[in-house]
């Protein structure tokens, strides 16, 4: 592997099997420095397993990993000084106070004793724990717990942060707040690898990898990913979209038709986009047969479309194989 200074994580053919189940299947990954890199995928797609392998907590069944220039898992112990890891479930100590938790993490992460106090004071301030320093972590709200977990993960100012679904149990406002912090960290020079199953969060990442059943099905910037779907996304306005949805779903050219309020969002298969004109006429005919008032119009692709496009493909491949 070449020592590309701009790539902090590099994985090739990363595979993890649990018995017969292949949780992560030949994943290649390059994570650039100082970026927020997103891992998007449904539950069970292998996000957590991949993150655990990358920070040396799980041994891969096959494949190679290099993180911050260190071969993993053989040099995982060295890596631990330079990374912060925020687990999916709150894993600080419920029966320690906010400050005691931070002090503990600072000590085990070798934050120099002389700097520790000032560092914790800064974190308490930045993460708005001023009045809650003496409160037990177990009594914090979901959003506060996540903020504390993030503060603890960065107490030693790591170069690289792994965050495993950090916002899965948090209200929307706290989520926005939390992401502001993530960008501040990236601006300050850290690289962040964040897994999520929220589209709006995925959209904010500098770069995005989509995992489906353990396979990496897309890996690019959110803009590039959506741009690839140009000409494949349409919207149908109709008074009763239910029947139209059924009819459209049976068309070979339609990959998915999802109801959104009083309209349908239609995603065409890749082949249909090349002959868009003819396909659209056929589909418009199908729609008008049911509802003469309905209109068919092009719309901007979004990440949800990307997600559907790349994961549907995977499903079709699997069904073919079976």
């Amino acid at each position: 592997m070449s020592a590309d200074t701009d790539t902090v994580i590099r994985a090739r053919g990363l595979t993890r099997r649990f018995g017969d189940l292949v949780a992560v299947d030949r994943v290649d990954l390059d994570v650039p420095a100082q970026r927020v890199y997103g891992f998007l995928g449904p539950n069970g797609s292998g996000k957590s397993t991949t993150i655990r392998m990358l920070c040396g907590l799980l041994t891969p069944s096959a494949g190679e990993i290099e993180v911050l220039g260190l071969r993993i898992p053989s040099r995982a112990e060295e890596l631990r000084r330079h990374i912060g890891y925020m687990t999916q479930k709150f894993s600080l100590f419920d029966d320690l106070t906010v400050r005691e938790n931070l002090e503990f993490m600072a000590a085990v992460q070798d934050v120099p004793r002389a700097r520790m106090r000032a560092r914790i004071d800064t974190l308490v301030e930045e993460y708005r724990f001023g009045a809650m320093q003496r409160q037990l972590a177990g009594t914090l709200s979901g959003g506060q717990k996540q903020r504390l977990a993030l503060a603890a993960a960065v107490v030693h100012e790591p170069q690289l942060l792994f965050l495993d679904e950090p916002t899965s149990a948090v209200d929307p406002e706290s989520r926005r707040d939390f992401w502001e912090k993530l960008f501040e960290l990236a601006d300050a020079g850290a690289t962040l690898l964040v897994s999520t199953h929220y589209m709006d969060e995925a959209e904010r990442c500098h770069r995005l990898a989509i995992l489906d059943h353990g396979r990496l099905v897309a890996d690019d910037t959110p803009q590039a990913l959506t741009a690839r779907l140009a000409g494949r996304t349409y919207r149908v306005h109709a008074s009763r979209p239910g029947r139209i949805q059924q009819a459209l779903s049976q068309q070979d050219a339609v990959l998915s038709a999802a109801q959104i309020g009083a309209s349908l969002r239609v995603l065409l298969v890749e082949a249909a986009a090349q002959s868009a004109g003819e396909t659209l006429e056929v589909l418009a005919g199908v729609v008008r047969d049911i509802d003469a008032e309905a209109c068919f119009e092009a719309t901007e692709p979004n990440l949800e479309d990307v997600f559907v496009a790349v994961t549907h493909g995977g499903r079709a491949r699997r069904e073919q194989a079976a």
Partner: protein
Amino acid sequence: MNMRRLLAVMRKELQQLRRDRVTLAMILGIPIVQLVLFGYAINLNLRNLDAGIVDQSGTQASRALVMDMLATGIVRASERAHTPRQLMQALQAGRISVGIVIPRDFERRRAEGRAVAQILVDGSDTAVQFAAAQLAQTPIANSALPDTRAPPDSTPRQGRIRVVAFYNPERRSAINIVPGLIGVILTMTMVLFTAVSVVRERERGNMELLIATPLSRSELLVGKVLPYVGIGLLQTTVILLLGVVLFAVPVHGLLVDVYLAAGLLIVANLALGLLISTRATSQFQAMQMMIFVFLPSILLSGFMFPFAGMPIAAQWIAEVLPLTHFLRLIRGVMLRGAGLSQMWPDVLALAAFSVLMLVLAISQFRKRLD
């Protein structure tokens, strides 16, 4: 091993312990309750048993024997009966637990050196049997008529009251119980506290965070159990103080030897608890494993039953248990005034057990999730 990280883990454990009211209560509660229960319960069983007395002889000597028996305080006359049959009925009905029968031919039996009295015992309670056996030792020599046929120091005397006799001159079991109880309580609490420690953090999800930090295995595991050494020594002090104050238990040997022996047992049990904790998959399973170790310790170590009387196989098992070795040490130090150096094989056994368990626990623990 990095001292700062080790201290951080110890500090964290103490902070958590300070907020864990149940465990805090157990640290002092278990020694106090156990000591009082074992100490007093066993003492009380030996006193004031309800007894019925049938004196069919009615001579001066027989009355003197009855008075001597009552004077031991083991029994008190609570039931008047005239025949052994009435005594049996009272025994069966549970009104008395001991019956004393002195036959009509008491004087002749005494002269001939045969058994002079019979003690009927409610055998369903072993403590009563024990008490009755003591009662049977009431000497008959100090009866009003001098016994010319048997000199006072002749051995046949032991058969003259028909219950098996055995030796316990002071008739105070607390002296035997208290030193042993130090061991039992330390075995129970030390293994209990540590057996759940690692598995609890695994269940709560803390472990995934801890193993992703630079903490080494030994820093984590040793740091988790070291605070309990202090707690174990505190418990030892509580039991010793109560033992001396409440039961006048002597410490014939050096106090420092008592604490050294206790320290050895504490470390051995903490290491064992740690090993359990690294192997168990849930707190419940850890508790099951703890009981699996605790029961043989109580039964085979010599705390309850004499070691020498056990089958060879049981003795082999007992030799593996830390409590067995500790009991030999602590009884030696406290009751016989022996020094630890005289009992070095047991010291060595405890130390070896501790090292082995600790090494096993650390090597079993993985900083990996797979």
